[in-house]
């Protein structure tokens, strides 16, 4: 384990799952037969939001289970609950993907590659985040040190089962200068993914941790001059500090600009899927509708709870809509809505799906899991999450993940019909 930290994030629980997998879905086996279980207070280090306060509420009458019973000729059980779905045009064994980590140094080394290998093994889609190429280069010509982007694509492609998953390459405004998408699209190493329909590009409009701002990283002072032509640099720690803050532009969008950027993506990269990533902005519902109308295969929304990268304290504490409110403001209809924001276990994931999402993204959880166990941490975490989702889905009397709906939820704020 490295010195990776995630304040406010249930790092310890994620680490347990990365280490012990499905066993972590239950209390310790050693307490069986001697401990009485029942609801206690919420775990103290897990902050609660409106999604956490919402409860999943199984019904007594379960017509969908009856249909499944008739299909099977026996009583359905947990393992009959089917999690397979499509995520932004890709087949996935469960409604989970790995979201972009941002330009933080955390993901640029071995952790990023470990995530890629394990996401590939799992067959779940993986988004590769911003600013990797303009800052670190692509590395096609340097055989000894290919870039983090190319390495992650290659590791993923080597591990992913046929017909499952896909790689999504994100691009922000500064990435456009480096033509990341054009580079990837014309790269021989990426052709197997392209030919099997498992490459997507994600237009980054914003992120959860700092809506309205672009990416921020700390760079060594001696490297700052080289970046000054492309980025805004702020000397926030004083002249004596070696670190300088590098700020990206969030890009300027209107509904017309968003619509045409998506149309241009579809036109320029006809063999790729088109994903769009939105921040938890007040017009997130309208922006999602514009993106889908322009032909986006998926719209991802970062709740304000999300984020792996460097962000100002004021934004972490005070800016952006909570994920629950984003879900309330977006009407996905039949479109693919993807959400992220402190997702690491099955209950929150299942609630997000009941609130309209097609799949949930793992950000900090994926990094923390591979940090705990570089070989199988993410696989273990996702297997535990999958078991929980199967149990929850089955408890709701449903056996297809797409059948989840708002009727499966209750909260004191929105109690519903009595």
């Amino acid at each position: 384990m490295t010195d990776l930290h995630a304040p406010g994030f249930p790092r310890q629980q994620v680490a347990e799952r990365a280490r012990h997998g499905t066993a972590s879905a239950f209390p310790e086996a050693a307490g069986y037969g001697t401990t009485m279980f029942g609801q206690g207070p919420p775990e103290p280090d897990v902050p609660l939001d409106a999604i956490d306060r919402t409860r999943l509420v199984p019904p007594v009458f379960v017509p969908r289970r009856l249909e499944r019973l008739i299909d099977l000729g026996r009583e359905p059980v947990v393992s009959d609950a089917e999690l397979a779905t499509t995520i932004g045009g890709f087949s996935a064994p469960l409604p989970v993907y790995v979201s972009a980590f941002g330009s933080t140094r955390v993901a640029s080394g071995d952790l990023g590659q470990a995530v890629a290998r394990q996401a590939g093994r799992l067959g779940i889609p993986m988004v590769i985040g911003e600013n990797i190429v303009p800052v670190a280069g692509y590395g096609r010509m340097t055989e000894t040190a290919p870039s983090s982007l190319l390495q992650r694509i290659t590791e993923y492609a080597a591990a992913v089962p046929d017909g499952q998953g896909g790689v999504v390459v994100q691009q922000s405004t500064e990435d456009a200068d480096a033509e990341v998408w054009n580079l990837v699209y014309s790269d021989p190493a990426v052709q197997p993914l392209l030919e099997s329909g498992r490459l997507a590009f994600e237009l980054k409009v914003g992120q959860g941790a700092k809506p309205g701002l672009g990416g921020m990283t700390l760079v060594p002072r001696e490297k700052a001059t080289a970046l000054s032509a492309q980025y805004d640099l702020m000397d926030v720690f004083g002249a004596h500090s070696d670190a300088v803050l590098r700020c990206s532009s969030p890009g300027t969008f209107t509904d017309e600009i968003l619509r045409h950027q998506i149309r241009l993506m579809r036109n320029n990269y006809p063999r790729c899927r088109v994903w769009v990533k939105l921040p938890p902005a007040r017009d997130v519902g309208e922006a999602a509708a514009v993106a889908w109308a322009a032909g986006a295969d998926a719209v991802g929304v970062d709740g304000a709870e999300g984020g792996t990268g460097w962000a100002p304290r004021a934004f972490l504490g005070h800016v952006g809509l909570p994920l629950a409110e984003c879900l309330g403001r977006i009407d996905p209809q039949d479109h693919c809505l993807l959400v992220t924001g402190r997702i690491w276990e099955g209950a929150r994931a299942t609630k997000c799906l009941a609130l309209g999402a097609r799949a949930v993204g793992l950000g900090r959880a994926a990094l923390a899991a591979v940090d705990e166990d570089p070989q199988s941490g993410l696989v273990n975490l996702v297997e535990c999450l999958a078991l929980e989702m199967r149990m929850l889905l089955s408890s709701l009397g449903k056996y297809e993940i797409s059948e989840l709906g708002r009727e499966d939820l209750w909260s004191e704020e929105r109690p519903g019909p009595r």
Partner: protein
Amino acid sequence: MSQETGRVQLPTPRAHLTSDRTRATLAVQSKFLAGAREFLVGEGFQELLPPTIGPVTDPGARGAKQVDIDYYGHRYKLMTSGILYKQASLLSFDKIFHVAPNVRLEPLETAVTHRHLVEFHQLDVEIGEGSREDALDIAERLTKHVVEYVLVHAQPELAVLGRDLEAFKQILAGPYGRRSHADVVADLQARGHAQEAGAEVDWEGEEIISRAAAHPFFITDYPKGSRGFYDKESTTEPGVLRNFDLIFPGGFGEMMSGSERESDYRNLVMRIRETGENPAKYDWYLTLAREGLPSSAGFGLGVERFTRFLCGLDAAWQASGYPKLPGDPRP
């Protein structure tokens, strides 16, 4: 000329350069350029020498990658198209043309379209204060003139190539047709081809309509989002561009692309954003636009593609002495 699934096998450089067919092809190409210069100079156009590198070039489309070079520590580009420089050159002359080299690292899938080369040339024409009608008129008369010129001056080479001269009659007979992009999309969809309405006509669709055509025709009015930021948007039909492609019959497909140009600073900045780019990249060009660029219309004609048609060749690479197909390392 059917779509191949496998890789195209190019001859060795020696076999290619010593082939009678290559020699005849390059000679026809030379005559074609001589005829084009004769026509354009006669129409009052000034020939200029194009730049080959710059801080920025046409952002391109359909996944073609630009080639970056290290220019004293600055990231410069090889030209993918001289369009921005053509507009700027109108500050010196009213009507100009280039014979310009272009380099585009096309996606690997285009290696089998018979119409794509990584390194190719364009006959670039720009008409200051010109409208789309002016550009269509020059385009039609230019292409007819060079076909006649080649018929007169390259008979022996056409004989070596066994070119069926009936194809030339299709070019010279009558005015070129006009079809809107929407009409072509509807036609392709009716033929069972899944052409998207909001997008560029795809490679396969282009070949289908070219094969079905008896005469050359212009496709006009592409939807915004399918072409570069410099193609002017219609003031009366929002979302429709004042542009065109010239399609030749016989499966040869697109010969040229052109448009009325956007020259208004504010519109250019917004259009650049719509392509996802940071306008700062286009600083020199936008500074000229802010100070005032002439309105214009023009086009770029693919020299190797046009030679392919003149010579009746299977593929555009045969019209280059040093062909470079996407992904294929060649001298």
